[in-house]
């Protein structure tokens, strides 16, 4: 896999530098760390911190800014950042009202964020957290690590970021987060695997006409391979999987998320099919995001996220303006 890069070991560092020069009005780097911090003024509100491995750009740094994240921590490619880095991010995000961590459900992320939380508490910073596990592709997850956190995390960033901006307390944010996450479900599909910088082979390889349902955002294999179907059928497969997860409420916010190598044209075609299918079921979509939000390097494919709009606060939060690079 050809990549525009220099030394694969420096790729995250150079990416952060590039990001900073391009968006210096909005963000700044905490020197010598993988932490990107917003430039917004501190106002004594709860800080929101997210992060994880790199390779998912614009996540997470693209969502740093007034009304969303206070800071994001970038680990190595597909590798959770370390506790000391997360601790540092907690410190810069702390405005006196505590810091809330948004963690995706991976062993590595959980352990590193947990250790950071312990370290922060030793320094008397109040820290709470939520683990996002929106990916319904993983079956049989009860006795294991559970489900993965994927693109639905972006909704968590936005809604909790808004709550913090509104001056909610860390306990209120914790409660909001616990109610919110079970309402978010995602599932993806891939047309290609993904190759990490410097690696000699792709995570997996698909045939010339083959796709895979249920892949993760780190090249984790999915639940089924088959021949590429028309977009409408792909949308139907993903929506059917998601529909099993919801019952009463039929109003949704949707993310159609490109995985990095999928042109916008295809994402919009797919959006059109999702809309058609939702109309057929008389499910309404009140809010759309279409684009590359939580990617997997150059992977071709996309994911579909539904957020059940149970609480009116969700729409209020989603519609509020923010100053970030990528929301």
């Amino acid at each position: 896999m050809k990549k525009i890069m220099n030394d694969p070991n420096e790729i995250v560092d150079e990416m952060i530098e590039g990001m900073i020069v391009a968006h210096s009005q909005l963000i700044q780097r905490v020197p010598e760390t993988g932490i990107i911090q917003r430039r917004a003024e501190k106002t004594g509100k709860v800080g929101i911190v997210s992060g994880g491995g790199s390779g998912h750009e614009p996540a997470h740094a693209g969502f740093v800014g007034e009304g969303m994240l206070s800071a994001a921590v970038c680990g190595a490619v597909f590798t959770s950042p370390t506790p000391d880095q997360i601790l540092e991010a907690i410190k810069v995000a702390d405005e006196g009202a505590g810091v809330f961590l948004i963690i995706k459900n991976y062993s590595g992320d959980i352990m590193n964020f947990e250790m950071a939380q312990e370290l922060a508490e030793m320094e008397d910073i109040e820290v709470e957290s939520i683990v996002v596990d929106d990916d319904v592709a993983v079956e049989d997850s009860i006795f294991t690590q559970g489900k993965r956190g994927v693109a639905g995390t972006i909704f968590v960033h936005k809604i909790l970021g808004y709550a913090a901006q509104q001056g909610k307390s860390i306990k209120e944010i914790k409660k909001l987060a616990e109610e919110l996450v079970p309402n978010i479900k995602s599932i993806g599909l891939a047309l290609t695997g993904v190759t990490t910088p410097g690696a000699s082979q792709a995570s997996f390889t698909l045939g010339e006409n083959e796709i895979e349902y249920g892949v993760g955002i780190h090249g984790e294999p999915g639940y089924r391979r088959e021949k590429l179907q028309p977009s409408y059928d792909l949308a139907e497969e993903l929506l059917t999987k998601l529909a099993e997860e919801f019952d009463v409420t039929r109003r949704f916010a949707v993310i159609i998320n490109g995985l990095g190598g999928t042109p916008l044209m295809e994402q919009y075609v797919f959006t059109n099919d999702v809309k058609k299918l939702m109309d057929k079921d008389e499910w309404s979509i009140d809010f759309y995001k279409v684009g590359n939000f939580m990617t997997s390097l150059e992977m071709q494919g996309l994911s579909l996220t539904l957020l059940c709009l149970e609480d009116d606060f969700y729409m209020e939060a989603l519609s509020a303006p923010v100053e970030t690079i990528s929301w």
Partner: protein
Amino acid sequence: MNMDLQTGIRWMELFNEDIQQNKDYLTQLDTPIGDSDHGNNMSRGMDQVIQAIEAESPDSLEALLKLVTSTLLSKVGGASGPLYGSAFMGMLKILKGDNTSSWDKVLRGGLDSIQKRGKAEVGDKTMVDVWAPVVKSLENKQLTHVVIEEAVEATKPLKAKKGRASYVGDRSIGHIDPGAYSSALLFQAMLKSEEK
């Protein structure tokens, strides 16, 4: 077995050599059931450990373990960073509590810490499946290279219940666990460090 500062340093040097040599293989193991970075993660971490030892010349086994702990914790990330970090931290705790602790007790402390942090049990197809039999054999004074090799091989038929490999469910069966393999390298290096 006995461990002292010199043997400990030699242990880390041998472990580093093995990790660098097996970097690609570890990543390969992490491909079908993980995210293809275990080799990178361990290589980055051990490279830094060796640099830290050279830069700081720890003057006691305790100081060495402390240095390894903080380096792994701050340079690796992912799942293996906090787990290996916790392992050395757990070992350090035992040694700090009682400077005369036997080495198998110290390693037992490492294993406990891994399990406390990662919540994995034996049979979950993780590094614990190497650590647990190794510690037990050491307690029985029966640790050999063969024991270690068998422990790694034994992760192959297991279905993963913890870590990233658990996301692939049944399809994790038939693959060696990468963290188990790197832990095997750790203990092979430990045996070699003593042999010398």
